[in-house]
Every structure is written in C-alpha cells, then in structure tokens.
C-alpha cells in the first residue's frame, strides 16, 4: 500500500493530541487511585497503562495506514473475528467479579467485548454507505443490521456484561437513526424494544437484576450495591468546588470505591479536583465529541461520515453512561470512561476508534 505524501501533511494532529491528553489525565488519576500513602507509590498500574497506550498507538497507526474504504472488505472479517472471540470467551474465558469476560493471551488479557463495539460500527457503516431510500428505511429494509447486531449483544449479555450490551444497543440505535430510519418505523421499533424488556429481564443474572432494582429503589440493598453508589456519591460530593487536591482523596484510599481505577475513576477524579475539575473534564469531552462531529460533517463521502458517526456515538454513550452511573443517576452497569479508565482492551479499542476518525479526516482531500 502506498502512502500518499499529502496524507501525512493532512494528518489530524488536533485529534491525536486531544486523545493523548485524555490518556495522560487518565494515567495521572490512575496513579492517584492506587496511591498508597504509607508506601508512597501506586504499584504497577500507571506504567502498565502507558504500555497499553503504546499498544494503542501502534494499533491506531496501523488503522490510519489503511484507507477507510477498505471497510467494505474488512468489516465482515473483523466482525466474524469478534463473534468467534466472544464465543471463545463463553467457553474458555477467564472469569472475574461474577462474569466471564477475558481471554488470556499470556502477556495480556483480552476483553473482546471492547473491540466488539467497533465491529458493530464497521458493519453498520458498510451497510449504510449507499444512499438511503428517498423516504428513509423502513423496518423491513433493516433486517440485515438487526441480524448482525443481535448476536453480539446477546453474547455480551450472557457473559454477563450488561454495560457493554447497553453500549452496543445504543450505538446500534444511534447509527440506524443516523442512517435514515423512518420516524414511523422508529416508533414501532421503540415499541418493540419495550416489549422485549420482560424477555431481557429474564436473561439477566440475579445480581444484575439486583442492580437494576437497587437503582430503581435504592433502599433495596443499602448494605450491598447501594453502599457502593453512596460511597461513590460521597467521593464526588466531598470534592466540592475545587476538590481536595491531587493524591488527597480519602474515599478511594480506604477501598470504599469499587473498581476505583477502572469504572469508578471519575469518582476519584471528582474528589480530588472538585466541580471545577469535572467541568473542565466534561468540557474537554464535549469539545472532543464536537470536533469529531465536525469531521463527520466534512467527510468526503457517506461511508466516511457514517463511520465517524459510529465512533462518536461510542465515545458519547460511554461518557454519558459512565458519569451517570458514578454520579448515581443510573444503575452501576460497568462501563469505562473512554481514554481515561485503566484497561488495555478498552484503551486500545478507543485509540483504534480515534485512528478511524483520523483516517477519514485526513483522506477528505484525496480522491
């Protein structure tokens, strides 16, 4: 594959550096989340996250070097690979915290549900790249996307990984709507979704149901899940306006926060940096998403636009759901804060998503 010189000059440095800034802030916070006052160090996690970042950048540049129009050819193989990995997880996966999510690769435990989020974007983009019917798609036209999305969602749901399943569902819906679903069809679909709720409820493990119920009625389990939500809220709230200062957070220090360096990293950040810090962080996410939407609007063709939209929706839903659950407005479902939470699979996947967007961005001038 020949790399056009013009491509290098059009490399989207803004997006690349913006993403790196998030990872840097993330590592600084991971350091704090694992900081042991007595020992004055934070263990190996921050440096491991750096390692994952290196891996992520490598993945990203590989993706950038391939013209995004190859999606047409690569979408299904990638999708197939994810499907196989998710099935493998089901049979051979490592379990942790009551669910089976990881495949041990020796040096690295891959969590296939993370890249699976990208797979759904790729196959949807491939499907929606041709211009839509004049009055938009009706449900009958969309059986293929549904058939593609359902197995991924079900496989993550039975792991059980409710958070990823929800993200997959939301990203799918976002793309279908952007791809051009008729309003009438959308309403019909929403109705069907509501009808599916009881079935979905049956599929949930007892502890997941417990979480949903705990959310709907926090008094239900004040000694278990409700306790974590309260502790998380105490962490955020006690940050007040300007925070307690870096490495001065106390809630995470005493292990009151569950998963303080992964899903609950935002609580650690909020405690130390206060509302001011949160405002800056959320504003930065907002800016990142708006910037990506600009690329979306300026994309050369429909394929590129849809592709970017999918990636943006991944980013968007992660941020919204993660912050909502940590701040106690949503059930605790286990979704990482993108580019920020600790975790190799998540970070590499998000870097890959950024890579896809840079890819589209820099190729908008080439023909």
């Amino acid at each position: 594959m020949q790399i056009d010189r013009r491509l290098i000059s059009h490399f989207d440095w803004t997006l690349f550096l913006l993403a790196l800034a998030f990872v840097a802030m993330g590592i600084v916070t991971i350091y704090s989340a694992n900081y042991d006052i007595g020992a004055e160090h934070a263990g190996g996690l921050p440096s491991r996250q750096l390692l994952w970042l290196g891996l992520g950048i490598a993945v990203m540049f590989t993706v950038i070097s391939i013209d995004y129009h190859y999606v047409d050819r690569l979408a299904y193989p990638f999708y197939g690979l994810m499907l196989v990995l998710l099935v493998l997880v089901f049979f051979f996966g490592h379990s942790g915290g009551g669910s089976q999510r990881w495949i041990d690769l020796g040096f690295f435990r891959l969590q296939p549900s993370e890249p699976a989020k990208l797979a759904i974007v790729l196959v949807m983009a491939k499907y929606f790249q041709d211009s839509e019917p004049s009055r938009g798609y009706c449900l009958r036209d969309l059986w293929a996307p549904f058939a593609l999305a359902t197995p991924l969602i079900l496989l993550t749901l039975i792991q059980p990984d409710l958070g990823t399943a929800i993200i997959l569902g939301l990203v799918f819906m976002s793309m279908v709507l952007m791809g051009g679903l008729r309003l009438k069809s959308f309403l019909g679909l929403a109705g069907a979704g509501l009808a599916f709720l009881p079935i979905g409820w049956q599929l949930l493990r007892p502890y997941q149901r417990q979480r949903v119920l705990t959310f709907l009625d926090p008094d239900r389990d004040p000694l278990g899940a409700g306790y974590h939500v309260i502790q998380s809220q105490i962490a955020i709230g006690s940050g007040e306006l300007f925070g307690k200062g870096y490495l001065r957070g106390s809630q995470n220090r005493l292990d009151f926060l569950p998963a303080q360096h992964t899903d609950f990293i935002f609580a650690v950040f909020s405690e130390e940096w206060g509302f001011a810090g949160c405002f800056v962080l959320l504003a930065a996410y907002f800016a990142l998403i708006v910037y990506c939407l600009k690329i979306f609007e300026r994309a050369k063709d429909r394929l590129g636009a849809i592709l970017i939209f999918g990636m943006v929706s991944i980013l968007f839903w992660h941020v919204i759901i993660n912050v909502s659950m940590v701040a106690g407005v949503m059930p605790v479902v286990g979704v990482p804060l993108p580019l920020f939470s600790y975790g190799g699979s998540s970070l590499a996947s998000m870097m890959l998503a950024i890579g896809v967007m840079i890819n589209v961005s820099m190729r908008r001038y080439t023909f």
Partner: protein
Amino acid sequence: MSKKPTFPVYELMAILADMGRKDAAPELRGRTRVVYFILIFAFLGLLSRLAILQIAHGERYTFLSENNRIRIKRVPGTRGMILDRRGELMVDSRPSFDLLFVPEDTESPESTLRLLGKYLGRNGNELIEIFEENKSRPAFDEIILGKDVDWATVVAVETHQLDLPGVTLRVRPRRNYADGPMAAHILGYLGEIGPKQLKILKEQGYLAGDEIGRYGLEKKWEEVLKGQSGGEQVEVDALGRRVRVLHEVVDVPGDTVHLTLDRQLQQTAFEALKGKQGTIVAIDVHSGAILTMVSTPAFDPNVFARGIKSEEWRSLIKDRLRPLNNRAIQGQYPPGSTFKIIMAIAGLEEGAMDPDAKIFDPGFFPFGNRNFRDWKKGGHGSVNLHKAIVESCDVYFYQLGQRLGVDKIAKYARAFGLGEKTGAFFDDEKDGLVPDTAWKRKRFRQPWYPGETPSVSIGQGYLTTTPLQLANMMAAVANGGTLYRPRIVNKVESVDGATVRQYQAEKIGTIELKPATLQRVREALADVVSGAGGTGAAARSKVVAIAGKTGTAQVIEMKGAYLKSEQLSYFNRDHAWFVAFAPVENPQIALAVLVEHGGHGGAAAAPLAKEVFEKYIELQNHPKDQQQARAEGESRAD
C-alpha cells in the same frame, strides 16, 4: 440550569451546526442538529447533577467522607431451631457477645487496649497482641478481641464505653445444642466459611466470618435453617458511635425444622450405649420415621459452636474409635445371623424347604473339602425352621443357602432394601453390599463359587449392611412387607408458625409375601426372645412382647479353636447385633442395635433393645408427661 434554556441552547446549536457546511452527505446534515441538541442537553444534565452533588450538597458529603462516617453493621439472620417430634428443643441459638475493636476510632490503640485490660481484670498485653496480629488489615476493619465473652465483660465495656473509643460489643447468635453429644451425628455442626468456599458462596449472600453447616442436618438443611441476614447502614461519629441509622434491612430468622426423632427415646438409647461403641436406630414401622439414631462414641457439637481449637479437631479426627462417624449409616458390617430372617423368608417364599421337616445338625456342614462350623460346638441336633431361627442354627441355613443359591438370596436381600442407600436425608450414607454372581463377575472377573454361598447364608462373607438398613428391613417384616424410605424430618415451619414443607411417609417398595411366611417368621422371632432356648432371651420384657433376632458379625475369621470373644484382643472381638420389633401383636417400632466388639448379640445388644422398647411404651402410655415436656421445650426455646 437556566430557566429558559431553549433560546441560548438553540443559539449554541446553530453556531455549532453551521460551522462547517462544506461537503457532508447532505441527507445526514439535517440530522446533525438533533445530534447537537442531544449532546448539549446530555452534558448540561451531567453538569447539573455534579453541581448538585458537589456544590449544593458538597458540605454534607465532605462531612460524611471524614473518618468515613457511613458504616455497614451486619446482623446475621438467627439460625432456625431444630425440635423433636413432640416439639422438644434440640438445637437453638442463644445470644452471645463478641468483643470488637476498630483501631481507626481511637487515637492510641495501645493505651485504649491497656485501659480495657484494666477494666476487665486482664493483662492488656494479650489484647495488644491480638491487635498487633491484625495490623495488616485496614484500620476501619473490626478486630475480634473475644468471642462469646462473659457477662462481666459486657457490663464492664458498657459502663466504660466513653473511655474506650473503638471498643464495641456485637450481639451474635450462638448455636446451642441442648443435649450435647446425644444426637451429634444427626444434628451435625457449624463451621466458619473458608476463603475458597466463600468465593463460591458470595453471591448467595455469605460474608467472611459467617458460619455454615458442615455436617449432619446443619449442613443438609443449611438453606432452610440459615435465615436471611440483615443489617444497618449507619452514620457514625468520629469515635465510631452511631449517630443515626440511614437504612435498615430486617433480618429474617431461619425456619424451624421438626424432626421425627423422639428426644427422650434418643436419650434412653444414648444412655444405654454409654461407654460402648455402637449404634441404635429405631424406626416407626408404619411410616419409616426415624425415632432414634444414636452413634457412639459421639462428639459435642457445642465445641464447634464456640470455635473448635485445632488440637481438639486433630484429636477428634485421629481418634481410633472415630467419633465423627455416624455408625448407623456409615458403618458397614456383616449382618451375621440377623440375615437368617431374609434366608427364612426366601426359603419359605421359594418353597426351597418344608419348614416343618427336621434336619440333623452335627455341628458342622461339610462342603467340598471344607467343614463349615456351627457356632454351637456339637450342633443343635434335630432342627426345623422354627428352632433354627430361635436357636440360630447355622447348619440349617448352610443347607438352605445351597438350595436357594446366591442369586435368589440376593434377590430377597435387595427386596428388603439391603445393598443400597436408603436415601434417608443423609449425604454420607453408605450402600452396604449384597453379593451375587453378576457382582462377582464384575468385581473380580470370576464366577461365583458354590463354596462362597454358606458364608453368605449366615450373613458373613462379602455381605455387609448398615444398621439403618437392618432396622428398615425389620420394619418391613413387622408391617407385612412395605419398605418405607427412612426419614428424619417431619416438617419445616417458618418463624410465624406456618408450615413451609411437610414430609409424608414414602413407600420405596412392597414385598409380596404369603401370609403363612410372615406368620411363621414372626412367631419364630417372638420365640427368639420369649421361647425356650431363644438366643435373645436377654431382651425379654415384662412390659412389652418383643420379637427379634440376634447376630454376631465376625471381625476376624476363626479357623482354629472355638474362642470366646472375651479371649480375643478388644479390636478383634465380634460385633454384637440385635434387630427387633415390638409389640409382637401390633408392631409399631423396629430397631437395630449394634455394639462394636461387644461379642455375642444376645448378651451385648439385646438388653439395650429392651431398654429402648420399654421407654417407647412408657412414652406412649404417659401422654401427660409429653405435654409437660412440650411445655418445657417451648419455654426453653424462648
């Protein structure tokens, strides 16, 4: 959020959406406005939530975060009671106090502990040692200074609470086995959950430090007995004292398990076996309800309730007499002459002999190149079936065995439930063994040799049974051929007295027997006890007519001289059997008594059976005592 958000938001959206309209796919462009709209609202929503937490309620949360003011106090559900058939209390849980210490709540743990030691009249250094051992744990974790502390300690700690920051008492139900070792093997015991088990059980709501049934009914009925733990989410002050309860989950006590066991009868059986190793199982012949099941030597489950020390545990499992074994279901012994009951029934049903015809017993039975001996030197002389049972003549049954063949013998043995678990609610029940040609071929890849049949005919050889199986066999003989599954639990009741589960008699087999067969066998069994020359004369009672059969299970094979059991070293002495039912005319209770190394069944086991039967009759005849006992049991249960 602004009161009129529409205008500024719309402005912002318009700016955002209009910035780069160059060459996007035009049909998508219209939708971007909606996207921006959702985006702005979602982020404003998050920010306002954060503003509420961090600015509006910031001070309150800061306060709560200091010293981590929110604590979880867990209250384990009170374990259910176990009562006997009349409602007499066998196991309950009494309140006990654990002495706890939370190092975080005091400025100087050492001086606090030293002060505590002073108040308790103990050396403070011991307490500090316990504290030092637990230093690696987080400072907000409670350290257990003492379990089940005495009343003086409770009073001292309560009185000096203000001087002892971080020292608290926790009420904890402690298991109490009213009669100690009497029914230890049935009731079982509890133990703390190990770390490995905890991983599995965590999702069921168990926590570290919880106790779980490890043996007997406590284990088997864990689900029912355990109850649901509750607890409180409390706000505490800087000294760890509770300020207010934020949330409370009420604990649910476990269900009450009503046994078929008769506590008083159990007591009689336990007393009778005192100082011996053995077992007594008694069954209601019309339902299979287990009335008594004693196994000795026993252990005291209360030792487990207070926390067994490792040397105590070691001595229990190393004891040669194996006190942890429930001999009634785990002991597999040759049935000895008690098996002649099955032989007689098989012979009569198959028509293998004329019961009235007499054979001559010279004291041995020549077969092949071997002489099988009768237990009585010189033999019983001229013997018919009745006399053969009453005097337990071996030679008669050697001959009968040859006529029946091992497979027919096995068929009747199995029909009466031998060679197979009774399935009586116990996990660790053993099968016993009923040999036949098929078994021999499978096990040893050898044919059955005719020379092996005589041993089986008198209940020796490969044949083994558990005492429970023999008691159940006897019940079937007594009730006319119905085999019930022995059971120990009558019903399960919730705390409010509602019946959760009720267990009925369960038939597991019906043996079609000619009335004449039953008649003859029962008459002979009655004469074993009451007839002239009967081997079970020691069981003869003035209170109740008993029918039974003695047996002696050889521990080592005697090839040489006729040795009396007493002449053998203790562990080589024979096991003594007595199986019986009563009353003869209207059978109600069947039992099996086994005394390990007791020698001859008639002497060692039969008198114990008599004691149990007489107690049973006494209990039947004095319903007033029962009512009194029930009242007693209930007052104790409170």
